[in-house]
């Protein structure tokens, strides 16, 4: 098996007295779906925040191996937008769309870090800019089609039903052409039917060969999707392995799954 696209070692995060993450190690491989599960308050979202530069971890390393080869990049302490440019994209547990922008625009924003046009380009709108603009729209539209939000294109994001908003977040993240996609509880607030569609969606996203790191409490989804699962509790890793191993793991059952 080739080298992981993301290597995290000894990640620790303290908030005043509270230790949200405790020397956590984790690896993600391209083309795989890795799940991160654990009780509420275990530190999952915090882990995402540390990866994406919203918090700087108290201790620990984060390295990204660009899929195209090239030497690995240290992500620790970078600004969020830098991290995204290097190919990490995320969705938020408490939805953070641009409420008063249309669905399409939300996705177009995702293209920002992959496009160049600036003041001059914007004003004079030369052929390059026009081409770029067209490319943005087409691609955004394609992505919306993929996640099945076509019919909302010109709807304001804030007026979308909850489930649709979650999918829009995924679409927006995809627009940044990530090599690693971080999903924070994408199925929350979806009914089983929608969850099933989401399942398919995530599958065919990962078919495109990018790595996915998934936080989720819906075990049905996690077990069916993930290639590997990490279980954290109180910021510590308590188990790691294939779904069936995890399902069988006594600690995990005690701390998290229950009978």
């Amino acid at each position, binding site marked *: 098996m080739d080298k992981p696209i993301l290597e995290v070692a000894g990640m620790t995060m303290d908030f005043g007295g509270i230790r949200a993450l405790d020397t956590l190690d984790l690896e993600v491989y391209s083309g795989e779906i890795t799940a991160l599960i654990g009780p509420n308050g275990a530190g999952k979202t915090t882990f995402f*925040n540390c990866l994406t530069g919203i918090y700087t971890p108290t201790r620990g390393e984060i390295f990204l191996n660009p899929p195209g080869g090239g030497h690995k990049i240290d992500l620790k302490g970078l600004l969020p937008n830098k991290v995204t440019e290097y190919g990490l994209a995320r969705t*938020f547990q408490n939805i953070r769309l641009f409420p008063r922008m249309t669905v399409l625009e939300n996705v177009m924003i995702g293209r920002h870090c992959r496009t160049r046009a600036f003041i001059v380009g914007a004003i004079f709108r030369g052929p390059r800019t026009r081409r770029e603009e067209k490319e943005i729209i087409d691609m955004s539209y394609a992505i919306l089609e993929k996640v099945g939000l076509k019919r909302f294109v010109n709807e304001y994001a804030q007026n979308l039903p909850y489930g649709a908003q979650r999918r829009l977040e995924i679409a927006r993240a995809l627009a940044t052409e990530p090599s690693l996609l971080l999903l924070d509880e994408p199925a929350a607030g979806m009914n089983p039917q929608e969850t099933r569609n989401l399942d398919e969606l995530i599958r065919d996203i990962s078919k495109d060969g990018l790595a996915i790191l998934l936080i989720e409490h819906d075990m049905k989804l996690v077990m069916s999707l993930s290639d590997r699962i990490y279980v954290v509790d109180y910021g510590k890793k308590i188990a790691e392995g294939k779904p069936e191993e995890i399902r069988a793991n006594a600690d995990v059952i005690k701390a998290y799954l229950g009978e």
Partner: protein
Amino acid sequence: MEYFVELLFSGLTRGAIYALIALGYTMVYGIIGLINFAHGDIYMIGAFTAYLVATVLSIYGFPLLAIIVLAGLAAAVWSSAYGYTIEKVAYKPLRQAPRLSPLISAIGMSIFLQNYVLLAQTSDFLPFPTLIPDWAFMEPIAHIISSTGITILIVTTVIMLLLTLLIKYTRIGKAMRATSQDKTMAMLVGINVNRVISVTFIIGSGLAAIGGLLIATHIGQINFYIGFIAGIKAFTAAVLGGIGSIPGAVLGSLILGLTEAFATGYISSDYEDVFAFSLLVLILIFKPSGILGKDETKKV
């Protein structure tokens, strides 16, 4: 050394004056996140009411104490009434509007109030009766701080303490904090949001009136424009201390007052305001939500 002390007290007096207005600003901001530019003018109206009542009473030969009490009362009552009405007319209809709409409404209201007083009364400066006599026992330090100055300092401190307690421990105080953080949820736990907001305006305006009375006594004259200038300074002070925080408003005001006094005393009064505002910028650069301001902890 003496000079230093003199300046110190000038600064404190000035600061206390700002604080009296800043407190109202901070309360209103705290509850609906609105920079209430009309607040300075409410203070002006308070001063005018006090002026009218006091003068009338003194013409009819009431004793000084009665004058102070009645004038103060009248000022408080009417200012509160104005505050209450303004909120209902100019801000309440804009609860769901974009954040800036009430701000503009406030600016308009401020212009309106100034000209309302200008037309109904006069553009000239009017002599404000000295309601607080120079106490004999103050004579030895009268060259350092006047009786009025002392009074203002004391009143400000007392009000600050009372407000802090009110916000922290009383039922209405809790309701205020809840309302300021999440109106929908506040309703869902049974808070009458509209009433809470009205009460806040009433209290804030009442304070402004007390301020109006004391400050006018201190300056000795009023006209329709005093509110605007003082208002801007007071708001600056409130932000400096961390807008929304009661002690912050006072602290910010004192710091602002002291800066101006010492700038005047040791450098030049030409640039006192420049120093005041530069200080503001500096402090905010290092403490982006004011000295005592709590940064909104919204988890990602």
